[in-house]
């Protein structure tokens, strides 16, 4: 985003101050077991948490990677809760928890984030709907890292049950675990804030609201440092990005697949960008690449752990099923070229199988590396975006690094994605 540099200086300063007085802000604790972000086990490195691709809290999902986190009221050891099924999303920024997945006593013990004595509430906009809820302050533990007083969003919190029309007019509501498909989302994208300068400059941004009471809310500007932040960027170390590792699937399917979310890039022996890795610098404001596939160019391409499938149009070459997925009569191998903003390219292959057969043949499987669906951009005119999404299927059998904007790493300064 624009005008990032000045803010970055400020953020670094805050981070130093907090770690200097907080006694362990974001500092990995040697006592791994007592940190209990929820998902540590003895085989994990200190800077890693375990990822699980299971059927999710609603027992109906595929290709969603979850971790557990621990949320505590600031400085409390009593008002704490470990929450499982937090979706790991390299396509958004910020930690958000679903109120209905939280203990009411823990939720009510969290302090409300304020702006001019009014409560800050967010209308987070995902493509398929909005998530409304207040910003609160909490001590968040992810693996061995604790960030003190992190700003998080509590989606569907009943204390702000009156949703402004400007918010509900953006789509369907995603305010319950049942609708959201997760008990929370850990947004660890390339960007430091969810909104950035747009929401700092325009009071009509319709993402952030200030509420003088439970039912009276107005859109407001929010400075970038008061917006939701990329949680890893708040760690006192290993804070320049992340590495996701998921094992290759056997015969394209898996059940309750386990992998790792590793913090930092090139900061420890286990998170260096590999010598054979492709490093692609994403667009500074949209975090996108371009992709080429079968002579088509996709201007809005990205690698996204929060998308469940391969999403792209194939010019009608493969049939789709009634479920909307591609259902070719035999598995198709496709070659894609990603190109970054410096014209660096990387080529990879993937396959698309008949999704209906895959689901029917593997009723308890939760991981599929060959499921795709059309973006239908081509059926919808010359939209500004022609979409190619390498969703979680891309991550199986790979290491995928996501470097935060303006964050230095031994391989270069973010924002970039790297994979091998």
């Amino acid at each position, binding site marked *: *985003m624009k005008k990032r540099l000045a803010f970055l200086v400020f953020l670094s300063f805050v981070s130093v101050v907090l770690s200097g007085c907080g006694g362990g802000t974001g500092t990995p604790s040697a006592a791994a077991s007592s940190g209990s972000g929820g998902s540590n086990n003895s085989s994990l490195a200190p800077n890693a948490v375990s990822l699980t691709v299971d059927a999710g809290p609603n027992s*109906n*999902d595929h290709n*969603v990677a979850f971790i557990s986190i621990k949320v505590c009221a600031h400085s409390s050891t009593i008002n704490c809760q470990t929450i499982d099924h937090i*979706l790991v999303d390299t*396509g*958004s920024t910020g930690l958000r928890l679903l109120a209905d997945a939280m203990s009411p006593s823990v939720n009510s013990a969290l302090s409300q984030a304020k702006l001019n004595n009014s409560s800050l509430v967010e209308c*987070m*906009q*995902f*493509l*398929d*709907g*909005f998530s409304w809820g207040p910003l609160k302050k909490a001590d968040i533990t992810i693996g061995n890292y604790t960030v003190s007083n992190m700003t998080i969003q509590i989606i569907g919190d009943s204390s702000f049950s009156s949703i402004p*029309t*400007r918010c*509900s*007019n*953006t*789509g*369907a509501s*995603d305010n319950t675990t049942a*609708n*959201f*498909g997760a008990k929370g989302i850990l947004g660890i994208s390339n*960007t430091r804030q*969810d*909104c*950035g300068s*747009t929401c700092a400059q*325009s009071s*009509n*941004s*319709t*993402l952030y609201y200030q509420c003088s009471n439970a039912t009276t809310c107005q859109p407001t500007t929010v400075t970038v440092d008061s917006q939701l932040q990329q949680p890893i960027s708040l760690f006192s170390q290993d804070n320049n990005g992340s590495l996701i590792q998921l094992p290759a699937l056997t015969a394209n399917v898996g059940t309750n697949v386990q992998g790792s979310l590793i913090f930092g890039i090139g900061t420890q022996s286990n998170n260096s960008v590999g010598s054979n890795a492709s490093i692609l610098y994403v667009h500074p*404001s*949209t*975090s996108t690449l371009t992709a080429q596939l079968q002579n088509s160019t996709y201007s*809005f391409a990205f690698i*996204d752990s*929060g*998308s*469940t*499938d391969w*999403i792209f149009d194939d010019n009608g070459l493969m049939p789709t099923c009634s479920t*909307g997925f591609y259902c070719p009569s035999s598995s198709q191998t496709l070659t894609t070229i990603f190109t970054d903003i410096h014209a660096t390219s990387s080529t990879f292959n993937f396959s698309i199988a008949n999704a209906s057969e895959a689901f029917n043949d593997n009723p308890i499987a939760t991981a599929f590396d060959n499921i795709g*669906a059309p*973006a*239908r*951009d081509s*059926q*919808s*005119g*010359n*939209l*500004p*975006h022609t*979409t190619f*999404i390498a*969703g979680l299927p891309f991550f199986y059998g790979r290491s995928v690094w996501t470097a935060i904007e303006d964050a230095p790493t031994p391989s270069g300064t973010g924002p970039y994605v790297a994979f091998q």
Partner: protein
Amino acid sequence: MLQKSILALSLLICSSVFASLGDDESSIQKDNTRLGGTHIKKQVQQQLFSVHELQSDNGATIKEYVSPQGKVFAVTWKGPLMPDLNQLLGQYFQPYVDTLKADGKRHHGVVHVEQPNFVVHSSGRLRAFSGLAYLPQALPQGVKIEDLQ
């Protein structure tokens, strides 16, 4: 302060424009008032339809396509935040939301709702949304979806 003055001035000058899908062209006035935006381009006459290009107050560029009979048959949007889809889709907004709710599958990365009487296509993500909605039965003769750009 200077920014605020400029914004106020532009709102005064262009105090109204934007319409709902399926509405008469005259409702474009109503739309702009609701979205709090500015009408940054006057109607551009083309052979088969005309286009109103508008700017919403939350930064989206919106185009409304009007048939020779004066009916809004398509809208497109592009911006860092979602525009007011209720205002843009009008009577089709609730059926759109109902269809989204009925489709349990999430995390797809694109939204495509296709009903016999309306189509909504939405893509992108926060900071870079775009979309298009149209009425297949109201496309003026000779107009293809690809023409809406």
